[in-house]
């Protein structure tokens, strides 16, 4: 059992407050991803959980026990660093056995555990090599192996895939997901890459400026972002934002004006919205489609063809830019005029403060949990 609880955590470096009050519950066997832009405090938060940074105020508990003052090695954690931090003067086997050696485990037992971990990660032929004779991906696996040998309650990953090339990153993502399933351990993972977050996480925690913007399952964040920041952060390419005003509000939703004339009624629970309020209309590129005629129209400025899909960067009559994801086969060229179709049920509305206006219906997939997140039955 390994649960982690954060209650009102604060962290200051001198006068500067980096973490400004974080509350979080991480359940047993959950794969939690901390994601956010550079400087948002995600690495600092991870290091506070690890014990490498002191907690200025608040409570950190592992399995219900308060661990603020417990040294890192006694918290039952293991960490995989961004730079791998392998011991350069030791062989791979010694690197992985180091923690056990410090704990006084006998040589035979140490190397048995190392061999087991090496088998899981396919490191057996490399056991006698020194880190400098390994490739980036191999070093990555040794760093993970070093963590596995400790049999920790919680694994901590600090941007482990950032230093790998794109192809290797995809491969390692899959390996890490399978490792999570095989080890049945709680994992906390920090990244700035929202694709990694979306594909690997049971729960994503979006951080900005030392504060949690939203925490939820990947599809929950995708379909029901709590504010403009989360909406713009999750999903690639970024969601399109069109500032507009409310024309009318009724039981079916809020009707807003579109640039170039025209209106759309977005199915939301209006709450406190009234006609005349400034709102932001959000639509994801994948929910827009080029057509001969549509609610919007514009001129295509740049066409990006990826083969399977095409991105049309277009300009609306009011000079604002909009991104449309289209099929790979369409013949549209730069400077073509196109109509843009949108589906009201895929639109989002955000009020003047940036908070999302609650949608009328929850998306059926938004509350879907991955198998590992379900409590063991």
């Amino acid at each position: 059992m390994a649960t982690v609880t954060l209650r009102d955590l604060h962290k200051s470096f001198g006068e500067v407050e980096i973490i400004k009050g974080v509350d979080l519950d991480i359940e047993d066997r959950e794969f939690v991803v901390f994601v956010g832009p550079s400087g948002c405090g995600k690495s600092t938060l991870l290091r506070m959980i690890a014990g490498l940074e002191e907690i200025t105020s608040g409570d950190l508990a592992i399995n219900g026990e308060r661990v603020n003052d417990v040294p890192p090695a006694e918290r039952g954690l293991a960490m995989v660093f961004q730079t791998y931090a392998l011991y350069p003067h030791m062989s791979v086997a010694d690197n992985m056995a180091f923690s056990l050696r410090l704990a006084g485990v006998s040589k035979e037992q140490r190397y048995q555990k190392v061999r087991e971990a090496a088998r899981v990660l396919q490191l057996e032929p490399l056991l006698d090599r020194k880190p400098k004779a390994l490739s980036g991906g191999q070093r990555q696996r040794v760093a993970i192996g070093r963590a596995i040998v400790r049999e920790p309650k919680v694994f901590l990953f600090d941007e482990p895939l950032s230093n790998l090339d794109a192809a290797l990153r995809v491969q390692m993502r899959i390996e890490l997901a399978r490792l999570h399933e095989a080890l049945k351990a709680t994992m906390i993972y920090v990244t700035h890459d929202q694709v990694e977050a979306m594909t690997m996480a049971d729960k994503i925690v979006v951080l900005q400026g030392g504060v949690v913007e939203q925490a939820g399952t990947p599809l929950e964040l995708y379909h029901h972002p709590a504010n403009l920041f989360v909406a713009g952060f999750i999903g690639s390419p970024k969601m399109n934002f069109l500032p507009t005003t409310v024309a009318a509000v009724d039981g079916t939703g809020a009707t807003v004006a579109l640039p170039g004339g025209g209106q759309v009624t977005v199915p939301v629970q209006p709450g406190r919205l009234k006609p005349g309020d400034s709102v932001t209309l959000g639509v994801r590129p994948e929910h827009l489609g080029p057509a001969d005629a549509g609610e919007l129209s514009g001129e295509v400025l740049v066409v990006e063809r990826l083969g399977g899909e095409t991105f049309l960067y277009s300009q609306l009559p009011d000079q604002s830019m909009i991104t449309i994801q289209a099929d790979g086969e369409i013949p549209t060229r730069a400077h073509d005029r196109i109509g843009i179709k949108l589906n009201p049920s895929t639109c989002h509305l955000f009020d003047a403060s940036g908070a999302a206006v609650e949608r009328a219906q929850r998306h059926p997939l938004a509350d879907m949990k991955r198998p590992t997140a379900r409590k063991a039955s």
Partner: protein
Amino acid sequence: MTESKFSKWAWGILCWLVAIIIFFPIFVMMITAFKNEREAQTLSLFFLPTLESFHEVFARSNYVSYVWNSILASIGSTLLCFALAIPAAYAMAFFPKKRTKDVLLWMLSTKMLPPVGVLVPMYLIFRDLRLLDTRIGLTVVFMLINLPIVVWMLYTFFKEVPKDILEAGRMDGAKPKQELVHLLMPLALPGIASTALLAIILAWNEAFWSLNLTTSTAAPLTTFIASFSSPQGLFWAKLSAASTMAIAPILVFGWMSQKQLVRGLTFGAVK
């Protein structure tokens, strides 16, 4: 000749020139050691080499005792230095506070004082503690002289060790002492070696405190050489013989470890 070839030649010749100029006095001293007293007065390069000066020096004094004192004091003081400097440099390199740089500079500034400025207080302290002419006293003095430099150099070498390797060690369960022994020292070993070499050489060549705080029992080789500059006049040949015997060990030692020395003196910039 192309531009770069010419400058290569020019630099080469310049380096040789500087080396010859620096080495020349030592060279003269070495050949004078093999002359007898009469020949030593002249600077001629043509002479019959003789070992009579060496014989006389050996006969007149206990060379072995001086060598032993030099070795004891140099190595002893270096070990003592490290015992203090390693924890100090570790603290300053990995747990820096606002004042750390100031403390380091202050330590280094004590080296700016001409030793003679504190000669009287030191002598009196040593006398009252009965440390005059003792090997322990000499070792302690050498340690104090070298400590600022050793701390500074170890600090710069420790800073080169990546912080996250030590953090990984901490996560693996290493207490600070274990971090130091298992991780930091192996990784900083080249730097530690260069620093140790430098400390040994500085202690070996130290003349001021050796002359003032020792007479016979604890006298190292520097005192030995000085004792040959007597008021009766300078016995060039014997002085040269004594000096050659005094510098021989350290010269060989320095030659063998020159790579590490260069690394140490350039603060690791040359790897």
